[in-house]
């Protein structure tokens, strides 16, 4: 047990030394890993940030009904009763035109402009909270309400969020394909790096086999190398993503302040970060393993 530990520590030291003997190519390889991984991972994080925004909107299902301007008081109250009796509707909120105008004044600060108008341009409105949250049922309800008399315009407030969500799903799928393709590329990069290492260490491998090295012993430093290269590449990708998201958030905050929103891009979570590191370490290990399996058996002492 202790011997095994000692030999693993020895191999780790050997691997680090190999990194340092070819600093430039090691650095470039790590950079290749970092850039190739930060591309899909960064895009994934961006999409996820936007998705959480869309989910917030989808969460508050509501239909806004704007009545026609010439509807009388009695008609408006009658409509309110009818809406409350509708089976698909959970809750009904009435927004009188005067209140709507008042709200508009407060939130936009356009008091002067609105005060200058001869009459209130806003209609009476109902905000309806449906029972269902299913996108198709919501659309059916909207279409049904659209046909009622005195309804000028019926708007499904979350419709844009659904469209956005569908697009985001498509985007995530595209990112996934990109990640798979780049993973293949990274495995290939490691495969070649290890192949070159095996070729330059041909003599050492031969001599080691002659004096009783097991295949596991010979394989170990190459696998460690692949693993370490992948891990460092994953760390590079993490750094690239975090720094760029941080910079983006800085300039984004100026923009969102103008829209009185506090939207910000999410930095990679602990789970995301560890997934990234594990995946890239695995890719490095896999490339090394394939290369070793392919090339090591060809070297037999003569």
């Amino acid at each position, binding site marked *: 047990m202790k*011997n095994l530990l000692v030999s693993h520590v020895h191999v780790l030291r050997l691997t680090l030394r190999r990194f340092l003997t070819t600093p430039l190519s090691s650095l470039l390889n790590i950079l290749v890993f970092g850039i190739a991984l930060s591309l899909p991972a960064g895009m994934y994080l961006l999409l996820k940030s936007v998705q959480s925004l869309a989910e917030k909107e989808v969460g508050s299902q509501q239909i806004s009904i704007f009545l026609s301007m010439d509807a009388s008081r009695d008609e408006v109250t009658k409509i309110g009763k009818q809406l409350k009796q509708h089976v698909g509707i959970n809750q009904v909120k009435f927004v009188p035109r005067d209140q709507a105008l008042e709200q508009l004044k407060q939130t936009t600060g356009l008091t002067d402009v609105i005060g200058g108008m001869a009459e209130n341009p806003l209609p009476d409105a109902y905000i309806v909270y449906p029972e269902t949250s299913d996108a198709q049922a919501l659309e059916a309800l909207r279409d049904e309400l659209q046909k009622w008399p005195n309804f000028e315009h019926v708007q499904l407030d979350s419709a844009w969020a659904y469209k956005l969500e569908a697009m985001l799903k498509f985007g995530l799928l595209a990112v996934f394909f990109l990640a798979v393709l780049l993973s293949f590329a990274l495995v290939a990069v490691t495969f070649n790096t290890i192949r070159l290492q095996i070729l330059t260490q041909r*003599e050492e491998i031969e001599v*080691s086999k002659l004096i009783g090295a097991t295949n596991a012993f010979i394989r170990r430093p190459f696998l460690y190398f692949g693993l370490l290269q992948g891990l460092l590449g994953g760390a590079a990708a993490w750094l690239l993503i975090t720094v760029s998201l941080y910079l983006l958030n800085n300039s984004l905050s100026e923009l969102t302040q103008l829209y009185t929103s506090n939207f910000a891009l999410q930095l990679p979570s602990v789970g995301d970060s560890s997934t990234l590191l594990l995946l890239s370490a695995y890719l490095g290990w896999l490339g090394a393993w394939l290369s070793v399996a392919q090339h090591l058996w060809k070297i037999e002492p003569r």
Partner: protein
Amino acid sequence: MIQFSKICKRYPGGYEALKNVSFEIAEGEMIFLTGHSGAGKSTLLKLVAAIERPNSGSIVVKGQNVSSIKGGALPYLRRNLGLIFQDHKILFDRSVFDNVMLPLQICGFDHRESAKRVRAALDKVGLLKHEKTSPIALSGGEQQLLCIARAIVNRPSILLADEPTGNLDLDYARDIMNIFNSFHQVGVTLLISSHDESILRQFKGRVLALKNGMLCP
């Protein structure tokens, strides 16, 4: 210790290196393997270490059938053997010390214990003062001594040496033979090949003479 029975070895291409070779070596014996070049001396040594496999016949080393040994058991067989090559097979990317260290690292020895063993082995062949130098700075004879130090650091019970005195001047050759003789005296089994019989005559040991792939009676 080593037993060959009816060994035939044919290389791809049809060249027959060994024809029906049988012999037995007891524990602690020192054997000189002689014959002209191309007689099959190197092939015979490679068969013992399972670097080559025979086409027919069986080889038993320390009770283990080497001719049909599986790949997984091979490293453990070789750890019992000390191999000394005519072309040294020294690694030039590391110091003299690290070259001798390699077999102990392979076996997973504790670092401090192995450092002691490495110095003892280097001392035995007289290279201790060169432990930190690169092997490239060593003469041909010193490189051969380094190869011997690497072969003995593991304290193997069998030493196989392929032309250890080839290309060396008489002084080095005698030094090396003296070192082998001292191993013989502590009970190590030695199998030493050489085409130069004059140097062998100065030492006591059984001679196996090969001629065209056959043992001379």
